[in-house]
């Protein structure tokens, strides 16, 4: 009886994944074409066109986010792994976990207050700040975990040779953990690429080509949001294409992360 019940649960739980994945695949593949990647959005009512500006925009937003989020995440990850056996470090770990539970829309509001209000207009910069804050917990956690996976005799060997601890960390431990940290970071970036809520009133969106970080900028996710609500079939079609691009990116990076970290575990 327990077996039947939990089997039914498994089926019900996994069903949505397949439904969503295959529906997006089906709708997306029939909608995606070269124009989607190369063309600009067409004015309302005209069919065709693409999301070239949104692809570039999402890229720029992620780049900006990485610029803010990665140094903070990586360095505090190193701190937690190397010097993290004290109450302060436990608090940081705890707060970082709590931060990862803060809704992304709230992070968007904070970015609005600290960037958009002083600048008096929406900008790619504000979107980047929001995405950067969202990346920090994931990057911190991954960096710490990947460093901790490095076998302790690597460190002992370095220290035994009289190499100072910071050099051991930078030249031996980090290079060894690099593969895991890099894929973890890519995963965080992919997750940031899928964020919509924190961009709505920071980066705003833009139907034209813009690469300036002081101006509103387009992004794939905000386009999906706008196009899904629109009563034009062609726009709905393009929303699915954008969703497919996002899901493909995220699943691919997830898979790479899996493969790389599995290698780590068996090495130990």
């Amino acid at each position, binding site marked *: 009886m327990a077996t039947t019940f939990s089997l039914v649960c498994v089926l019900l739980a996994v069903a949505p994944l397949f439904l969503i994945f295959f529906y997006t695949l089906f709708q997306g593949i029939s909608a995606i074409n070269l124009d989607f990647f190369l063309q600009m959005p067409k004015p309302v009512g005209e069919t065709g066109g693409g999301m070239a500006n949104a692809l570039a925009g999402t890229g720029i937003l992620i780049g900006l986010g990485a610029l803010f989020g990665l140094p*903070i995440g990586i360095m505090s990850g190193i701190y937690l792994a190397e010097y993290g056996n004290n109450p302060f470090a436990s608090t940081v770990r705890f707060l970082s976990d709590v931060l990862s539970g*803060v809704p992304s829309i709230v992070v968007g509001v904070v970015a609005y207050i600290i960037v958009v209000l002083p600048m008096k207009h929406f900008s790619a910069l504000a979107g980047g700040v929001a995405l950067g804050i969202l990346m920090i917990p994931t990057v911190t956690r991954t960096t710490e975990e990947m460093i901790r996976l490095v076998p302790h005799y*690597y460190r002992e060997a370095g220290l035994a040779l009289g190499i100072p601890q*910071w050099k051991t960390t930078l030249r031996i431990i980090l290079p060894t953990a690099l593969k895991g940290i890099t894929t973890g970071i890519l995963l965080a970036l992919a997750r940031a690429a*899928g964020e919509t809520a924190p961009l709505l009133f920071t980066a705003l969106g833009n139907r034209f080509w813009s690469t300036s970080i002081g101006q509103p900028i387009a992004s794939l996710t905000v386009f999906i949001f706008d196009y899904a609500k629109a009563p034009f079939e062609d726009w709905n079609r393009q929303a699915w294409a954008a969703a497919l691009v996002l899901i493909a990116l995220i699943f691919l990076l997830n898979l790479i992360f899996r493969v790389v970290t599995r290698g780590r575990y068996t090495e130990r």
Partner: protein
Amino acid sequence: MQIAVKAVGHELGGVLTSSTPPAVSSGRASKASRWNVGDMVFKNLTLLFALIVFSLVFLMGYEMYKGSELSIQKFGLSFLTGTTWDPVRDEYGALPFVFGTIVSSMLALIVAVPLSVGVAVFLSELAPGWVERPLSYLVELLAAIPSIVYGLWGVFVLVPWIRTTVEPFLSKSAGFLPIFKGAPYGFGMLAAGLILAIMILPIITSISRDVLKAIPNLQREAALALGATTWEKTKVVLASARSGILGATLLGLGRAVGETMAVTMVIGNRPEISFSVFDPGHSMASVIANEFTEATSDMYVSALIEIALVLFVVTIILNALARLVVWSVTRTYKAG
């Protein structure tokens, strides 16, 4: 082992040759002190960044408090109990949104918790390793799908299905209940609750599984030795894992409360309090997403920021509680 040592030796060679010659040739004492300086600088540098992470949560809370001062001063506590949300007259009461958030999250929990626990039991108690690993991975993938894609799928697949199948069925079979009254719109609380259930299922499942796995085998063996069936054994294990599953549920609730895009797209976005799950509603996160860019007056912006502040505080409390509960449970069993 042999290979690992060789690899270390190789990497050390690289380190040694690339370090600057003067450092190597200088005297023993000065070398040692320079190394200590390097250690100190590096440690404090990383500490500085850790301090940023530490202060971020407090900074966020402070900025939002400052941003919502206008509305806090004008409305006080009645902000949370007021039912009028009227930007034209600059009057803001957030109860419809609070109500929507609570109802949609509760619906999500009602659907997701039993399912998640079922899956977690399957993963930790019943499935052999070759089934467990890929299945855990699939469930985790579900967590990786962006909210906006859930929303898109919700709008074009889930909502039509609810409108044509679920709601007519419910009103026919249980229409006498006030929660199943009204016309089947599709967009509404029910759709929001269901999409949220799908979205919080992975986190509740994976944490419940971890908690179940942390329970020592001794308990299972004891149950089996007393002649318990698999079902009875599972009950014993679940009873020990109760508080851990509560923690997982709290974490799921935290997610559901703050979830924005998918909810905004299917909940109907109408600030009304209705007791039928068929009716459109609104949630705290979705009102921020919908109205922030349109907010023209300072009071309007301030009121929306106050909603964000409330969300922030609620999710932090839920997360902190959940982490403490899960942490204490796994710790107890690891120690014992």
